[in-house]
């Protein structure tokens, strides 16, 4: 066995040893958790670990000296595996039996160096086996006769006599019964020319016996090798699965972060939209209130002006009536010439006097009413001016509020907070508007109350 192969095997054995130790630890842990101790099971697990330890030690010891096939339960012929390259002679072992037909498969691929020799050898072997079958009496050797065993990987098949030759005359040599073997009739290139062993000096073992010996001796090692390969493949699969899971995990995390960012952005957009809508609504309400206020103030002003005009017209009409009456009373028509002078009647004079007194009182009342109306008009104008000032102040406040809302929207603000602010602003605007309306109503009622007493004396006088 090569040194590299030995090291590889040693490494695999070490891994197996670790695995078994961990498995034994798991077993102890399970017993501890369940509180159910089983000494025989523990002893069995420990024996398995010890077995691997022993193999590891023997392998380490074998690594120091020349590889000994007998020490490693190798068959006398020397086994061939992927890690045990085929000898140049194309030596055949029971472990990697070629079919009787000499068929070569990829599974038992020979190294390039030995390929040429084996290509030549396989037909020879076939020919020899055929020859042996055809002429069994001539050969008269049990080694050549194919044994009727089921075909398997560890089943030996008839091979050339050279292949049955043990590579090392060790333990099998002592057990081997030398039997007469027919000399190979193959061509010289099929002979073991690269085999350093002398062909005649080696004891020959019958193939059937060699197979009998090889099968039980090789099987634990084969099992171990298979187990090691299985462990290695499992470890590889686990590593790949871990890599895949790590990749999937990072992808999942990235997608979760992306989803969070998107949802946050969506929330922010929604909040901005809500804030813009509330600002627009507040602006519309403010403009509505402003226009309503302007309409009401204009209507009240117009009504006041109309009332004052009516009052003035009435006063003028009364004055004209008084002027008409006055010449009649003050300067009575002169008596026609030639007639006797007529003294005014006392009743008429009294009536005239009373009329004059009434007229004077009415004039005084009208003048007072006019002065009152003028002062009232001035007050209304002043209040209208005040209302205009308030409207201007409200406009200014609304503009300031909109700027503040815009500034707040620049910063991230929670939708709940913005909704609260908006509700407060709306409430303040409604309160202010209610105050304006009540003030206007009060003004209008005042106007009505002042106009009513002014009209009463006029009605009563006429």
């Amino acid at each position, binding site marked *: 066995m090569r040194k590299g192969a030995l090291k590889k095997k040693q490494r695999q054995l070490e891994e197996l040893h670790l695995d078994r*130790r961990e498995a034994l*630890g798991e077993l*102890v*842990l399970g017993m501890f958790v369940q509180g159910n*101790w089983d000494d025989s099971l523990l002893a069995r*697990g420990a024996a398995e*670990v010890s077995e691997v*330890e022993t193999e590891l030690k023997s392998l380490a010891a074998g690594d120091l000296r020349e590889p000994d096939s007998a020490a490693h339960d190798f068959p006398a012929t020397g086994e061939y595996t992927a890690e045990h390259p085929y000898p140049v002679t194309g030596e055949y072992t029971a472990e990697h039996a070629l079919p009787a037909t000499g068929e070569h498969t990829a599974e038992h691929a020979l190294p390039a160096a030995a390929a040429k020799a084996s290509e030549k050898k396989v037909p020879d072997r076939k020919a020899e086996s055929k020859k042996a079958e055809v002429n069994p009496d001539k050969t008269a050797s049990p080694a050549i006769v194919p044994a009727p065993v089921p075909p398997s990987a560890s089943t030996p098949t008839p091979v050339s006599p050279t292949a049955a030759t043990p590579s090392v005359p060790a333990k099998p040599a002592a057990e081997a019964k030398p039997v007469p073997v027919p000399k190979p009739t193959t061509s010289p290139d099929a002979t073991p020319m690269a085999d350093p062993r002398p062909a005649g000096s080696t004891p020959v073992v019958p193939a059937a016996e060699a197979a009998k010996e090889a099968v039980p001796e090789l099987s634990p090692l084969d099992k171990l090798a298979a187990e090691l390969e299985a462990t290695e493949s499992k470890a590889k699969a686990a590593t790949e699965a871990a890599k895949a899971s790590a990749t999937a995990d990072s992808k999942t995390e990235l997608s979760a972060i992306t989803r*969070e960012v998107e949802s*946050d952005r969506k929330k922010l957009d929604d909040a901005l939209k809500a804030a813009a809508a509330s600002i627009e609504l507040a602006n519309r309400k403010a403009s509505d209130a402003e226009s309503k206020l302007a309409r009401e103030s204009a209507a009240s002003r117009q009504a006041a002006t109309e009332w004052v005009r009516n009052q003035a017209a009435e006063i003028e009409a009364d004055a004209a009536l008084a002027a008409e009456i006055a010449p009649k009373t003050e300067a009575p028509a002169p008596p026609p010439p030639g007639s006797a002078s007529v003294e005014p009647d006392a009743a008429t004079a009294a009536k005239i006097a009373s009329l004059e007194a009434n007229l004077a009182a009415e004039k005084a009342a009208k003048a007072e009413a006019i002065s009152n109306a003028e002062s009232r008009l001035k007050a209304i104008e002043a209040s209208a001016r005040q209302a205009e000032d308030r409207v201007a102040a409200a406009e200014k406040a609304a503009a300031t509020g909109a700027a503040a809302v815009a500034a707040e929207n620049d910063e991230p603000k929670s939708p709940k907070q913005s909704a609260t602010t908006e509700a407060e602003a709306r409430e303040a605007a409604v309160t202010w508007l209610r105050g304006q309306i009540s003030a206007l109503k009060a003004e209008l009622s005042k106007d009505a109350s002042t106009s009513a007493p002014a009209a009463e004396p006029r009605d009563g006088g006429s």
Partner: protein
Amino acid sequence: MGLFSRDGQSGRERRAMKDHLDELDELRRTSLGELGEMTVGMANEGSFDRRALSEKATQVVSIDREADLIARGLEEGLTLEELEDLARREDEPGTDPGASSTSRRS
């Protein structure tokens, strides 16, 4: 806003928890190996000292508990403080094995 955080847990905490989980896994494997080695030694001597085996197994159980706690923290997005609280709460009524598992971390 905490765009890169999951619930209250920061990315740094998450990474630290993952690293710690790996360390715990490695520690568990080592402890199990030691436990197996101890068992082999006892088998060679011909008698099993259950008390010694139980002590070693207790260590492994505490490692398992801590690993479970960290895994839960990772899964539920808990911060380190929340994890400490959870560990304390779990330890309060606790009986034996992982009583000192969290104190080792701090």
